[in-house]
């Protein structure tokens, strides 16, 4: 298929960017979206132009690196997939595809489609862990009985890959789905409950410090999340913070 791509080009963080049109031809419907981008970049390199910078790593939906806002949706029009899992069969021959970076003040553009998501790392550093001594005498985790429901819900929350699609898609650029998932995965398990109060307070404080917006419960994040993280995690985080603050 032949496509017109409208892509955000920005030299660096301090330079003003703009949308630039490109044509790509003979794109197979079996290609992933990133493979299509590789074809474009090969074309650009061969013609002596600067290739489009975009984040990618595992290309199998696990690392959370690929971050593109495609035709007005985070990771494109498909559901439950990252950009690397999005196939070109989702588009038609002759389509025009708009490709932009995640837009949020807390995710500044580094170059073209690559954004700085270290705000998420700083939120994790503020409390997204459990202080377990791992020097060799750690107790077997299975020695502590845990309800199946709690284990399953914690695991569901832990599937968050921190890609930032929730922030990108939220009209308020809120990070509450990400932080809600990280708070939940520990708050549901006995190992995490010990530090639950400090964790939620510190992570929410860091989230606010980073300049993310306020959640207004539109539910867009839940729909666009490639891992299907539920809004219930935000509700749980709210309860956890209320509990920790009383």
């Amino acid at each position, binding site marked *: 298929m032949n496509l017109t791509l*409208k892509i*955000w080009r920005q030299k660096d963080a301090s330079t003003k960017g703009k*949308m630039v049109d490109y044509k790509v031809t003979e794109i197979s419907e079996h290609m992933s979206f990133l493979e299509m981008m590789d074809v474009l970049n090969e074309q650009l390199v061969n013609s002596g132009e600067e290739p489009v910078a975009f984040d990618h790593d595992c290309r199998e939906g696990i690392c959370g690196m690929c971050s593109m*806002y495609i*035709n*007005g*949706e985070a990771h494109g*029009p498909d559901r439950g997939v990252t950009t690397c899992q999005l196939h070109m069969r989702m588009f038609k021959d002759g389509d025009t595809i*708009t490709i*932009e970076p995640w*837009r*949020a*003040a*807390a995710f500044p553009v580094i170059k073209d489609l690559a954004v700085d998501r270290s705000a998420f790392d700083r939120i994790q550093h503020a409390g997204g862990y459990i202080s377990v001594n791992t020097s060799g005498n750690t107790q077997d985790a299975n020695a502590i009985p845990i309800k199946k429901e709690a284990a399953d819900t914690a695991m569901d929350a832990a599937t968050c890959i921190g890609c930032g699609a929730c922030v990108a*898609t939220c*009209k*308020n*650029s*809120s990070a*509450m789905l990400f932080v809600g998932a990280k708070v939940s995965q520990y708050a549901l398990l006995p190992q995490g409950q010990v530090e639950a109060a400090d964790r939620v307070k510190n992570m*929410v*404080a860091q*989230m*606010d410090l980073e*300049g*993310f*917006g*306020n*959640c*207004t*419960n*539109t*539910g*867009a994040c839940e*729909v*666009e999340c490639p891992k299907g993280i*539920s*809004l*219930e995690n*935000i*509700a*749980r*985080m*709210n*309860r956890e*913070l*209320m509990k920790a*603050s*009383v």
Partner: protein
Amino acid sequence: MSGFFKSSIGRKVSMALSAFFLMVFLLQHLSINMMSVFSAELFNEVSHFMGSNPVVQFALQPVLIFGVVFHFVMGLILEIKNNKARKVSYAQNNGAANSSWMSRNMIWSGLAILAFITLHFIDFWFPEINTKFIQGDWSGLHNGEFRYYHELQEKFVNPIRVAGYCIAFVFLGLHLAHGFTSAFQSVGAASLRKKLGVIGKAYAIIVPLGFIIIALYHHLNHNH
């Protein structure tokens, strides 16, 4: 706890708490107004009680005014903060693919309701304040009869005002269609999400529709 209300989640919870208060108030307001459709006498009696009872006038009324002002001011503050959180807009954003129009436009439905409240205050609240607190007339009487029912009917003679009221109630319905479930989600009531969704939709239809019926009833029956 003061730190909690300064956090993004605290602000969200405070919006929800003021929303709960306003939603209960709407039910009470609708119940009393609905009495006017069935009995002018009953409506007059209840209106006089609400208009002259010291607990209602000096305790509940200030709380209500605070609740309304708080909800609007906090809503506007959050909107400004949220706009700052995305400095560059998307060239193409398909919000309809993942969220309802109501949820994305709470600020606009809210501002429409704010405009309506201004009109509503000019129509009813300011004259009440003038009669009671400036002229000092707490009798509720006009020419020896209760004035409330008559004043209500007078306001719904003008078709343009009635149309304005009905449009405002549609915006109220749109605001409530998202606001009801959103308030519960904000205070952490996620496990009841499906049930609350159904109750929320019913509330968002029944309450504004009730007000529309009352406005139309008095417009069509003002000569009787």
